[in-house]
């Protein structure tokens, strides 16, 4: 596979503050690559460095194997879809899309043909003469992408373009955008703070935190094998236990909670000094009232605090006995658990294989959104 975009050891410092800290990654041609991180993690800075609006303090950006050092934004073969889309309000849709082609000196028939075929591709064939103010949010979105794609860039950079849309339309545009990317086959580099956007659309996701990449992986791997506590917390929901890692007389590792429960551990952490670890279990990995024989399971007695009904995404809020920590458990809507009411005492269990552990980190690693 050919590499469309290669970022090597990029750092960006503003005085003492390091916005981007030694980031490297490659994006293969035709892939959908997302950079996912909380606001203020430096992802927009990184994108603007790739687009050419900012110069990195150190490191290089290569596009199609060519070093982009010193190449201005208007000469780079990448285009940026802005967060607020930045469509030109004084031009109609046609002129917006033709803008880049005309700047290249293309004229007449070739511009007309390219613009019309692009409008067809985004499904807005008859919209050429409309003014920008006459378009809906989703249509503006597609025009902003069309305006860049018509230039056939090596990579299309997208700066949270779905952020301004309402929830329903955002769900719809996620799928649209993925379909469009597959259809045109252009490399997309997409930045977002919304993990669902990143997971649904991407071939690869890089999780960014405080200026550096925590993990670059497929969405599936990010979810099931997070490489750090940050990724485990940021991607998807997770229940966090702070426990002590201990060894029993047979040399097997187990975890002990503050309340004295002992939990089976399958993936012990290599510890130095302190034996405090963080144990993460996904809400859907926890099984309600596990039937009988799975001896290997970790079982806990809990009290149901509340039922959080949200259709297919419904959950139970439970508190283990002798504890104050709240846990979230998926509640499958298959009528099997309709009998559960608030204040009920139930058992929950999970396969130790489904849990991941990390060394305890000091303080909060990121502010809850």
């Amino acid at each position, binding site marked *: 596979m050919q590499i469309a975009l290669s970022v090597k050891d990029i750092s960006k410092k503003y005085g003492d503050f390091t916005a981007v800290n030694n980031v490297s990654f490659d994006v293969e041609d035709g892939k959908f690559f997302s950079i996912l991180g909380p606001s203020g993690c430096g992802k927009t800075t990184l994108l603007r460095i790739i687009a050419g609006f900012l110069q990195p303090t150190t490191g290089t950006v290569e596009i199609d194997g060519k070093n982009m050092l010193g190449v201005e*934004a*208007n000469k780079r073969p990448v*285009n940026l879809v802005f967060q607020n889309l*930045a469509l030109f309000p*004084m031009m109609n849709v046609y002129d917006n899309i033709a803008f880049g082609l005309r700047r*290249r000196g293309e004229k007449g028939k070739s511009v007309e043909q390219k613009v019309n075929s692009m409008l067809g591709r985004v499904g807005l064939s008859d919209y050429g003469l409309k003014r920008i103010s006459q378009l809906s949010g989703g249509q503006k979105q597609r025009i902003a992408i069309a*305006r*860049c794609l018509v*230039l056939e860039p090596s990579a299309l950079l997208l700066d949270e373009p779905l952020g301004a849309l309402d929830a329903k339309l955002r769900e719809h545009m996620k799928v649209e955008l993925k379909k469009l990317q597959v259809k045109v086959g252009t490399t997309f580099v997409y930045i977002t703070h919304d993990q669902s956007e990143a997971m649904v659309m991407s071939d690869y996701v890089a999780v960014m935190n405080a200026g550096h990449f925590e993990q670059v992986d497929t969405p599936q791997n990010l979810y099931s094998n997070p490489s750090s506590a940050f990724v485990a917390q940021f991607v998807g929901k997770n229940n966090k236990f702070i426990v002590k890692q201990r060894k029993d007389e047979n040399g097997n590792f187990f975890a002990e909670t503050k309340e004295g429960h002992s939990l089976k551990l399958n993936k012990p952490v290599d510890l130095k000094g302190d034996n405090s670890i963080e144990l993460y279990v996904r809400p859907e990995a926890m099984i309600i009232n596990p039937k009988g024989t799975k001896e290997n399971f970790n079982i806990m007695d809990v009290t149901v605090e509340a039922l959080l009904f949200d259709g297919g995404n419904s959950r139970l809020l439970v508190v283990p006995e002798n504890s104050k920590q709240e846990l979230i458990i998926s509640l499958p809507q298959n009528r099997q658990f309709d009998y559960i009411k608030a204040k009920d005492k139930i058992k929950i269990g999970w396969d130790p294989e489904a849990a991941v552990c990390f060394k305890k980190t000091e303080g909060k690693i990121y502010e809850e959104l």
Partner: protein
Amino acid sequence: MKNSKKSKIRWSFIIFFIPVFLWLFLLIVLPHFELLRMSFLGRSGFTFKNYTAFFTEPIYWLTFVRTAMYSILVTFIVLIIALPIAFFITKVVNLKIQGVLLVFLLVPFWVSELIRVYGWMILLRESGVLNHFLVGLGLFKQPIEMLYNDITMIMGLVYTSMLFMIVPIIGVMESLDDSLIEAAYDLGAKKIAIWREIIIPYSMPGIMSGSIIVFMLVLGSYLTPKLMGGKNSLWFTEQIYNQIITYFNWNQGAAFGFMLLILSSIIIWIALKLTKQEFRKVIK
């Protein structure tokens, strides 16, 4: 209940409207009707003679053409200087400096036009400050008269009307989203193309309202051309002044006044048509 509320609103409207109405009617509409009546009067009653004189005497219409041409020229010069200044103030500097620069722009307008023109005269006249320096530095052998020619007059007019162009353009440019400029740059536009395709079209309402104000101000200005212009740089307002004050021919002066109003309105209408702007948007 309903009726009393209705009449209340009407009364408050009338109370607030009366001063505006009196102002407009007594000081503007009524005198204009009187002038209009006068402009059609000759020695022997009703006549078009005052208007035909404008077209038959070359000195009159030539003065007008000269005045209009110079006003258009001044408007263009002001526009060309004002655009980068407005851009610099709104987009380049930070907020604190922006305020300081705006104050700098306003300060000269705290003194009257007359004082400002005299200021220029002190600087530029034969025995003035500038000549003193240039001779002192040895650049000139002897002082030269820099006042009383068209170039100095145009410079004076540009200076006095600059603010009225910059302020409306700043008003529009402030709402120009920076990302539009970045997007244009990202799509391959060079600096000139960004100005031509993005900044100027976006600022067009501000440019047109500034241009109308400056054009009307310059066309109707009297002091600057009179004091800084030479004997040959006659301004059309001076023609009106001469008719009314020197020749005491109010009827002719009134007719010239109306010609000025009509012709300048036509020029503005043509300019709006040429730039495809709507008057309603421009005056907002």
